[in-house]
């Protein structure tokens, strides 16, 4: 069959449609992909600066010891000596920056202790574990255990 250009003309709109789709993709990509993407790796380069600009929330144990030597002594005398202050008290940069005026919230004792000590097969053997239902009597863990040195 003899085919002229006229007979294939309808394909132009098909090609046009594809070109338009590719065009939309390219424009969308340019608009949506953040600047600096891929500069260092498969992420936005600016994310590093954003992270650096975030306020520090943890003060670090080295700060606490200036003012709370008593608690430090107690903690270091027991098996909690490897647990840093802010692991239980949460991030305290504000407390330190205000010289102690901004007071930390009291820890929610039961969930805090159970977070580490509730029996779970996945936990390492060196971590002492209790089953709350079997172990727990009284109002809260700190009725019997001193948090800083929990040995009975």
């Amino acid at each position: 069959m003899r085919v002229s250009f006229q007979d294939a003309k309808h394909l132009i709109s098909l090609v046009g449609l594809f070109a338009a789709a590719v065009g939309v993709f390219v424009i969308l990509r340019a608009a949506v992909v953040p600047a600096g993407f891929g500069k260092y790796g498969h992420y936005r380069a600016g994310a590093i600066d954003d992270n650096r600009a975030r306020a520090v929330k943890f003060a670090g144990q080295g700060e606490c010891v200036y003012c709370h030597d008593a608690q430090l002594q107690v903690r270091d005398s027991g098996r909690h000596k490897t647990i840093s202050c802010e692991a239980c008290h949460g991030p305290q940069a504000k407390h330190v920056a205000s010289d102690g005026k901004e007071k930390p919230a009291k820890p929610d004792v039961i969930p805090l202790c159970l977070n580490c000590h509730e029996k779970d097969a996945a936990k390492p053997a060196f971590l002492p574990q209790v089953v709350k239902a079997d172990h727990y009597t009284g109002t809260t863990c700190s009725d019997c255990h001193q948090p800083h040195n929990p040995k009975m």
Partner: protein
Amino acid sequence: MVHAIPGVEGFMYPNEVELQWGLLVVVYPYITGLVAGAFILASLERVFRVEAVKPTYRLALLTALAFLLVAPLPLQLHLGHPERSLEMYLTPHKESAMAMFGFVYLWYLMVVLLVEIWLDYRADIVRRAQSETGLLRIVYRVLTLGSMNISPASLHVDERLGWIMTIVGIPSAFMLHGYVGFLFGSIKANPWWSTPLMPIVFLFSAMVSGIAGVQGIYMFSMWVRKKTIDMRCVDTIGTYLFYAFIIDFSLEMLDLLHRTYESSESFASLDFMVHTRLFTSQIVLQIIVGTLVPLAILAATQVLTLAEQTRKRMYATASVLTLIGIFFMRWNVVIGGQLFSKSFLGYTTYKLEFATREGLLTAGVLMILPLFILWGLVKLLPPWTEETAS
């Protein structure tokens, strides 16, 4: 005192106790398999010009499209955050097999399937754009993409281009589903999945499920429309199904033999799993009910001379059983691969939920949705040959 975790037997690493990939990840390869299979069936008809199966050519294409549109949904639901899925296209990571799969999918949908359907239906679309009224007229007019030219010469151009698209489409469909097998087969930490045979096994099982799916949908729609089933057509498809199934089954048995003979350190553990936790889904549902029984039925239709009515019933039964069998093949791959510990010392259990984001209900809806889409597509673009002939 050791506290047993419910459903866990022996030793499991903590991150293995709960399955990360559930039913939706089973549904996903099942659906893409139906797409690839239906398309390959349609393509073979076209490339090898098999007149007998013509009545299912367009139906197979529409089936492929309907299922392809739903294919990403199980993954979207499984992962959550559908708004982020676009990022896979915008900033793809070259080393991510899944990101590259996005492009295989897009290529297949936009370049292969839609173009092929459009070219094949163009004459019908133009005719309807002229004869329909109201909203439908507008829809068809848009679908013509602005050209009303259906001269024999222009249709000849469509025919040639469509043929080329089919040739391009076959490797694309192979890639689409082979890739799904590749995703599993390349997970080298998992001995249940990691085998280079995986893409090939997936591909052939896809063809089997696609052919069975189209066969079933064809027979069912003829029954609904109260039209006579073209026996020459279903007989031929039945033969295709039989052959494809034999190859698929041989490949799976080859894989099994190879595993058994090789007996690598994982074997005892996997073997135990197949005899216990996977017994119902693997031995009973996949191999016996979903493979041996339909193969026996199809073999009977090949060697015996049977009445038309009997053959119809046998084809329908074989199709349904095949679809069940392939579904459980996906199940056994996906779920089975997560039931044993990488330490080969323990086993866990998959707990199927019901009305949750990844539950049975969702999976059911996802399986039915393509049939509704297909119904809509069939209304818009009728694939029936009897009507175009009259």
